[in-house]
């Protein structure tokens, strides 16, 4: 479903992503981990067609995200970092806007919109202006817009950031529900999410992929068998080595 092949991205003199490569198949949920500034968001933006790589290639299905960007973008649902959305719209209007821009209309649009609002558990807040909603509901509105067109590839940049424990639980359950017939990438700083939803882990630091394995293998890197210890030892070792 997704091929990231030797992708490079630089901003000025800083290399944000350095020859990153991985593939993702339908049914996989990939946990994308790394310290702040590691390059996670940049990789996700390139997969969503929001940024173009300076080198290498991103393919969604058979579509190159530079040469055939729009066809690829039809197959991607993207929740950007910070879950931006239009403040004066209601979640219902916002999801409807994203669907209509993707070419949906009429009863099909209404059905897809209502299903997405229900899956993201917007409830009565679906009819309130996004600017007046809490952070958690804003995030759910953006999540509903990302899943509404039922894309085969979902790219979720910190989907549970700012949610309370119950809301986190609901979003994780939603990701698990959708996992069977989609390929999903989830970036997170919350390591407890990894065993809860992910079938695979990639750790990225300074733009380079350090680890690509399943959560059990990753946890076993630490003597304690804990993910946060494995993460800390790996990223601290690299920071120390490069310092």
């Amino acid at each position, binding site marked *: 479903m997704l091929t990231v092949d030797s992708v490079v991205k630089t901003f000025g003199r800083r290399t944000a992503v350095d020859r990153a490569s991985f593939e993702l198949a339908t049914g996989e949920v990939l946990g994308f981990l790394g310290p702040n500034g590691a390059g996670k968001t940049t990789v996700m*933006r390139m997969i969503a067609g*929001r*940024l*173009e790589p300076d080198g290498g290639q991103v393919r969604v299905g058979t579509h190159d995200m530079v040469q055939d960007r729009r066809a690829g*973008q039809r197959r991607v649902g993207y929740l950007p970092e910070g879950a931006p959305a239009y403040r*004066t719209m209601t979640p219902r209007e916002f999801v409807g806007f994203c669907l209509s821009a993707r*070419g949906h209309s009429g009863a099909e649009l209404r059905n897809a919109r209502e299903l997405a609002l229900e899956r993201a558990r917007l409830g009565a807040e679906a009819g309130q202006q996004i600017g007046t909603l809490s952070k958690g509901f804003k995030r759910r509105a953006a999540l509903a817009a990302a899943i509404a067109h039922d894309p085969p590839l979902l790219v979720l940049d910190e989907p549970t950031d700012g949610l309370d424990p119950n809301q986190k639980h609901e979003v994780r359950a939603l990701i698990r529900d959708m996992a069977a017939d989609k390929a999903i990438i989830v970036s997170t700083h919350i390591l407890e999410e990894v065993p809860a939803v992910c079938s695979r882990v990639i750790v990225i630091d300074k733009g380079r992929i350090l680890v690509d394995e399943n959560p059990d293998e990753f946890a076993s890197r630490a003597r304690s068998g804990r993910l946060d210890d494995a993460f800390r030892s790996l990223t601290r070792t690299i920071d120390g080595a490069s310092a």
Partner: protein
Amino acid sequence: MLSPAGFLAIYRREMRAWFTTPLAYVFLAAFAFAAPAFAFNVGRFFDTNRADLAPLFAYMPWLLMILMPALAMRAWAEERDRGTLEILLSLPVSVSSIALAKFAAAWTVALAALLATIPMWIAVNYLGSPDNLAIAISYLGVFLLAGSYLAIGQALSAASGSQVTAFVLSVLASLFLTMAGLPLVTDSLSGTAPAFVVEALAYSSVLERFAAFERGVVGLGDLVYFLSLMVFGVTAGGLQAGASREGGR
């Protein structure tokens, strides 16, 4: 390449954004107040003893020079400020469709503002027998002029870091375009700049082109001039916004 569904969706969203907040109403009220105020107080509408709208149209370039940048400044700068550019550029919609939809929506608001001056047209018909065709052509000129200022303003909104910067730059650009042909500018340049530069400046002046419409004449060259400004502005805005795919936020 245009994406019709994307164009329509973004046009509707822009129109909603204008009319679900006080923005459009404040703008329309400001225009509906300022345009007749210029015509009555500065243009001496009643003292001319003529049944036409010349006093209204004479000050339009100066009024639009301020108000159109206010209408254009949020186009791209606000999307960038609020992070929603991320949403727009991840939709399967071409940047040209986004730029065109944003321009079309702002131009529609400008048209609504122009329609607010229609009572003056009705009034001159009540007071006398004006040349309605000439007035209609003048309105067309104002509409094209508004579109030109808007397109340039939106291009500068795409290039600017903030809405305030976009507004200031747009007013300056519009001021330059408007004043380029005035004797004040051409006379001061005639001693230092080559003659062809002075002529080119005078030729590119908005006032010069708009004057033809004010006389009730539509020239192909004048139409092409205004349409070129609009195509240039919309294209430049789209290219600038699209360039963010290659790097930066």
